[in-house]
């Protein structure tokens, strides 16, 4: 059976958020373009379930699978990659993996790891925020869950931007677990504590940014205190268009869902030999788009109003260098 057509597999954290829903759509679109079977796996945040599901799919397909995964936790990547290599299935990981696990340790099955530079983009949104308040004043920051790697990186980016702008003071940092409702209550309490000292709010994702915007709106401050998010979900883009958020970053999850599979599929079908690819293509940063007032309308037309058009064969078009460790 290993000679037959491979099954395409996307494994994600959950389907109940827009980010992963778009990722899944990308995977579906790619599978449709090739007419291959497509399976989605969801970890529901449970590492054990994520690993068990991968094992199950490997057992079911006899290893004839191409897997694109956003591991639930960095730690999950190793057992998953080991299982894939053992079953001779090709895999691309995204976002999370332990620093000491490398694709070239498992040639040719561990094709690549794709991530986005959280520090870079956390800094980028912070810069837009700082700029929008004229480089002076107090800002607040909403983080994701404390131990999450992207959350940590994005916060590091924020701190870099603040360090570069002595006029800016980080009044407080709180985590809102990526949730808008928690962000709402946190920002409300901040308004009590800091009042007019609040010049801007930086959030590690769009959901929390939306919660912040709404908390500001409830106090008649929406649009007056600039907010930034990250992720580029539709409601975030809408808020940028409305001027209530000043920036977000789009990772293009549609691209992640499609191209992760495309890269691994290309390796499986022999279009390239991973072992011969440079490291910059094995541990690769993708390109995010910082969406701000300047480019939001164009972005909206190209990506939200229309389904993004991708060239599935352009494997490295968005490669932005090798991942730092």
């Amino acid at each position, binding site marked *: 059976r290993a000679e037959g057509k491979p099954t395409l597999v996307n494994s994600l954290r959950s*389907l*109940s*958020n*827009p980010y*992963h*829903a778009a990722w*899944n759509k990308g995977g579906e679109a790619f599978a449709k373009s090739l007419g291959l079977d497509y399976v989605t796996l969801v970890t529901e945040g449970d590492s054990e379930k994520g690993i068990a599901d991968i094992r199950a799919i490997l057992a079911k397909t006899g290893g004839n699978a191409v897997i694109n995964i956003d591991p639930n936790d960095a730690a999950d990547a190793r057992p998953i990659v080991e299982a894939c290599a053992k079953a001779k299935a090709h895999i691309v990981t995204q976002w999370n993996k332990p620093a000491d696990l490398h694709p070239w340790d498992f040639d040719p099955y561990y094709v690549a790891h794709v991530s986005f530079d959280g520090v870079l983009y956390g800094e980028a949104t912070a810069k837009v925020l700082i700029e929008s308040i004229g480089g002076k004043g107090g800002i607040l920051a909403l*983080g994701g869950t*404390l131990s999450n790697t992207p959350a940590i990186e994005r916060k590091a980016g924020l701190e870099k931007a603040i360090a570069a702008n002595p006029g800016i003071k980080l009044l*407080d*940092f*709180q*985590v809102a*677990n990526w*949730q*808008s*409702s*928690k962000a*709402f*209550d*946190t920002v*409300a*309490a*901040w*308004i*009590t*504590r800091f*009042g007019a000292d609040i010049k801007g709010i930086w959030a590690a994702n769009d*959901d929390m940014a*939306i*919660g912040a915007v*709404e908390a500001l*709106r*409830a106090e008649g401050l929406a649009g007056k205190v600039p907010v930034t998010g990250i992720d580029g*979900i*539709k*409601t975030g883009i*809408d808020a940028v268009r409305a001027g209530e958020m000043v920036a977000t970053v789009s990772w293009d999850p549609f691209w992640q869902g499609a191209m992760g599979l495309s890269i691994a599929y290309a390796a499986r079908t022999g279009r390239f030999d991973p072992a011969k690819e440079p490291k910059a293509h094995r541990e690769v940063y993708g390109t995010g788009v910082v969406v701000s007032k300047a480019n939001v309308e164009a972005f909206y037309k190209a990506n939200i109003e229309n389904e993004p058009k991708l060239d599935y064969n352009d494997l490295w078009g968005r490669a932005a260098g090798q991942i730092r460790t």
Partner: protein
Amino acid sequence: MSLATTSANHGERLRSRLRKTAPLLVLVGLCILIGVTSPNFLSLPNGIRVLTAASIPMVLALGATFVILVGGIDLSVEGNIALSAIVLSLVLSGPLGTLGLWAVPLAILAGAAMGAANGAAHVGLRIPSFMVTLGTWFVGLGLGTVLLGGGTIRIVEPSIRALSLTRFVGLPLLVWIAAAALLVAWVLQARTRFGRHVYAVGGAEDLAALSGIRVGRIKVLVFILAGAFYGLAAVMSAAQIGQGNAAVGDGRLFTTITAVVVGGTSLAGGDGGVIETAIGVLIVAVLANGMILLGIPPYVQQAVQGLMIIAAVAISIDHRLFRIVK
């Protein structure tokens, strides 16, 4: 009868009264404590913010109170919110977009329907409520995800957003809704037959049945009522953050049950009530608000909150009355 026993009873009752008011004292003490260290806390605008933050948990906890009073537990809170919020946003954004406020009763109906399913499975199949509602938690989240394909719908309908953005006598409508829900719940609990029967079933359902109370029906009604409250809370959440998706209810379950228990309602059933719950909700809301005002670092917030809640419950539980605590 001798004097000794009657006056002993007197002392006993006095103490149990004191214990009953303990959660209120804890709340007041907490407010004073935070107020002293962070004077802004006691300002009017912050009072309004605390009430706003308490409004959604309040409605959720009111629903859960009834379930806990009959001796059950409802874990489906988050699933129910997801489903109801998505029904709301679909009705608003779908072909029926002009329905406006009418989407609200539909969402509440969706919540009530899920409650009815809980009650029917619990009573009809004789499955512990813990397990039924654990199951329907997944079912609700799943249905919500299916209906929306995982996306988010923005809610722009002004009449819905008004629930969060319009103020009446200085308070957002959300707070008024929570207050109205509290009033309705209190009347139901304290002044209606239904309320009496809820306590009877929670006290001892076999004995209640002997007095001719239809235990099964009361339980189903309780789950429906709870579901309707969750549906209302879903509407409020969606109105507050202006979007509906399967994640709007995330993290609500444990805070809800915590609030109920902190208020002094016994998880064994039959004891406590919605006024107690209201105080419990306020304790939890004040604590959350206070921790940010005091600038307690995120690392230790959960721990601090946990310890405070242990303290609050330990102070207010009357261990003479509740010898057996499970």
